[in-house]
């Protein structure tokens, strides 16, 4: 099970951690085959360096074996378990990592060597490949220099030289040494991501154009191998007999199949055709309350995702009011996050900070130690419309705007017309209008491109976004506001403000101690949501899963694949 910090009280704790069937004394079923839903359309490539979508990770994490594997321990805590690396040493200054690989093999019989990791790190950093997660090598000496090279100006030779210079070295076949530019405890979590799993250059070369699409050109080194793939529809995985831990892999075949409609998923789960589902919307309640039968276990855990609003703080915004911190704060305090999550989703957590529950900083779980920065202020205002309006008005007056609140119109941009999105849009509009007495103009844009167009042109006051952490560290949630981050391109987050924020990053880079880091993270978070009001966080994501009682041993890592079935088994 997944450790749940502030998990909702209804949570049924599933069996924790990977357990061997024998330990439980359970009877294994004859047929060790399961089927799972999987949004196939988001599986674009078999190239683990090129991957970026969750569905790709879901597959790659089962067919490849990286240095470490994100999973949960017996107690349900998030851990990085030794995988391809039997063990690793970290130098005292936190800058040098030495991984000692175990002896394990690709499915074609070739041993997995440290060089395969070196190749993978260099390949993902190669600017000519322009891989999405190239920045994952950013912590390594020479990493940032490599992936930020400009392919127009840099020659191939320059790039090759930069690749050589990347401080990842195969000391021998089973020893890999990585040198970091600064002590970055999150590095280990990044290594657990499938993007940095090993690659075989010879296989890539032989496959040529087919490497992305044709699984038969690939070799595998994980617990399963791919034996079937229908584009945008399904993927078949079968047990890899040469996997180093094959004796603990029980499932012989796993079919990942695309079932778009939630009602279909539901029907199939009830019919026992799906091993697990992720209920959403109205389906959550019946599963949570056990109305849907009793042959499943209900899992509720944390998820590293936060939903927030950002502002257009440029002078070009439609109302021109978002420059005022007080206005922004008023908007942030005006919404009833508890009611929202309750009414619209009937799940998730109200967010008064930016770092979600369960995110770990080394051994520490950030949210357990640091109270949410907005909480106090929110309680002070207690959704009192008078006070909120006064605050908003004050902010307006600071900007020299003397209009009545009823004359104020702000524009809220968003995308999508699914039932749930529409409900959100309507809820927010209503919430701000009733609390602040202003008019909120909802502009729903057709697709993400149109949305971006509108956003980049600044024709809005407030916009909606979500962010999921790629690795398990608070850094994944604060880095975006730095000058390396992605916020810089929109939301009126100027270079200046980013530079201001970079001081936090600089301090973090110099601080290897988790406790010290925690303090700095707390300051940074305070700055984002309270002092600067760069964003209005309103909701942390969570994970809800229902697993058939027939299936045991499935784990649900915090980052990485949503289901880890590598050690799961079907009981009779």
């Amino acid at each position: 099970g997944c450790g749940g910090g502030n998990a909702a009280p209804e949570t049924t704790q599933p069996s924790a951690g990977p357990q061997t069937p024998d330990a439980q004394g359970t009877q294994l079923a004859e047929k060790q085959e399961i089927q799972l839903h999987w949004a196939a359309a988001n599986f674009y490539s078999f190239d683990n360096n090129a991957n970026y979508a969750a569905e790709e990770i879901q597959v790659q994490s089962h067919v490849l074996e990286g240095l470490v594997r994100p999973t949960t321990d017996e107690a349900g805590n998030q851990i990085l378990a030794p995988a391809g690396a039997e063990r690793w040493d970290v130098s005292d200054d936190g800058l040098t990592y030495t991984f000692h690989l175990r002896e394990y093999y690709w499915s074609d019989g070739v041993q997995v060597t440290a060089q395969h990791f070196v190749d993978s790190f260099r390949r993902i950093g190669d600017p000519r490949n322009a891989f999405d997660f190239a920045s994952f090598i950013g912590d390594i000496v020479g990493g940032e220099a490599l992936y930020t090279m400009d392919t127009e100006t840099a020659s191939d030779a320059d790039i090759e030289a930069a690749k050589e210079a990347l401080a990842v070295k195969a000391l021998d076949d089973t020893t890999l040494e990585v040198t970091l530019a600064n002590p970055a405890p999150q590095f280990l979590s990044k290594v657990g991501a499938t993007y940095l799993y090993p690659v075989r250059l010879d296989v890539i070369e032989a496959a040529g154009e087919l490497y992305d699409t044709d699984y038969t050109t690939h070799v595998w080194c994980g617990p399963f191998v791919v034996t079937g793939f229908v584009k945008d529809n399904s993927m078949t995985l079968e047990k890899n007999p040469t996997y180093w831990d094959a004796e603990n892999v029980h499932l012989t075949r796993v079919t990942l199949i695309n079932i778009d409609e939630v009602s279909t998923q539901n029907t199939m789960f009830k019919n026992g055709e799906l091993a697990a589902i992720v209920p959403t919307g109205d389906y959550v309640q019946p599963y949570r309350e056990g109305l849907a039968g009793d042959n499943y276990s209900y899992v509720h855990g944390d998820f590293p995702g936060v939903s927030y609003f950002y502002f257009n703080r440029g002078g070009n915004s439609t109302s021109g009011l978002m420059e005022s911190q007080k206005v922004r704060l008023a908007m942030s305090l005006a919404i009833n996050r508890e009611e929202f999550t309750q009414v619209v989703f009937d799940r998730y957590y109200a967010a008064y900070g930016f770092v979600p529950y369960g995110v770990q900083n080394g051994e520490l779980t950030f949210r357990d130690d640091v109270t949410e920065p907005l909480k106090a202020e929110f309680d002070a205002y207690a959704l009192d419309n008078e006070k909120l309006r006064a605050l908003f008005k004050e902010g307006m007056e600071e900007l020299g705007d003397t209009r009545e609140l009823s004359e104020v119109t702000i524009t809220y941009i968003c995308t999508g017309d699914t039932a749930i999105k529409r409900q959100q849009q309507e809820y927010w509009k209503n919430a701000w209008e009733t609390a602040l007495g202003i008019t909120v103009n909802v502009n729903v844009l057709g697709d993400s491109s149109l949305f971006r167009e509108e956003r980049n042109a600044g024709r809005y006051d407030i916009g909606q976004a979500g962010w999921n952490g790629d690795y398990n560290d608070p850094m994944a949630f604060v880095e975006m506001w730095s000058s390396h981050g992605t916020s810089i391109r929109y939301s009126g987050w100027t270079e200046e403000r980013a530079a201001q924020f970079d001081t936090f990053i600089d301090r973090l880079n110099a601080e290897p101690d988790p406790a010290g880091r925690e303090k700095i993270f707390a300051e940074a978070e305070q700055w984002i949501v309270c002092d600067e009001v760069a964003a209005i966080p309103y909701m942390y994501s969570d994970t809800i899963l229902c697993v058939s009682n027939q299936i045991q041993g499935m784990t649900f890592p915090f980052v990485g694949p949503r289901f880890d079935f590598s050690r799961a088994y079907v009981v009779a």
Partner: protein
Amino acid sequence: MEQAADNRFVIIGCADADKEAIARPTITYAQDAWRRLRKNPIAMASIVVLVLMVVLVIFGPLLCGWEYDYMQPTLKNLPPSAEHWFGTDMLGRDIFARVCVGGRVSLLIALVCTCVQVVVGCAYGGIMAYFGGWVDNIMMRVIEVMMSIPYLLVVIIVMMVLDNSVPSLLVALCVTSWCNTARAMRGVILQLKSSEYVMAAQSLGAPARRVILKHLIPNTIGILILNTATSIPNYIFQESTLGFLGIGLQPPNTSLGVMISLGQAAMEFYPLQLIFPAAALVLIVLAFNLLGDGLRDALDPKLRK
């Protein structure tokens, strides 16, 4: 024989006045059509339903006393009751009021779009068929191109050029809607074109516009009605599909199409949220179709006698 008898047997000949008399009452085309429509109980029922719908759609929210966008988050997904006739939706809004308001938008869209479809389709099809030759060939190709270009692209362009508002929604819905009508019209008009009354008008010196408008198009009513009545639900659904692209209706505005697609998400647990708007739509479409059938019979000069 008697005097009286003699009077009766006097040749008086025929009076000039009765010569060309037609015994039937004088009634105009419209009167006659209306009269025959009235004889058709199904068509009359459809009219009654439509009128009722229009009344409901305008005054419905007043009747039930709820604003269509008034949220009561604590009272969400309620079943029908005396308070909320059709129950409440997922944000605790009154479904009856929403069906009325949604119906208003959907009816408006359906009517405006069918009007455009009919007008443009007729004009285009008429011109194409009337002039024939290379004009026809080119205009036909234009239709082919229009119909082949991905519709979504066209819609996005419309959104860009115009803004994200109800008028641009209407434009987006109408951009290619007339193509099929134009094709159908072309087929009929090609046949009508060689009829003698068209030739008569031409030999009187009638310009093309007059021939098309006065002679050709009025005689295609049957096809037009069929075309129109069946395209009404199409528009209503297309509107909700375009809503998916964020065109036109912005929250909390709603339409039957939107309500149906939202209701579909809640179908499993709150089927009434789907059934009410869907029933309203079926009623509207059924009424339009049956009225269309009746109208076609009433307007068809062939069926008169």
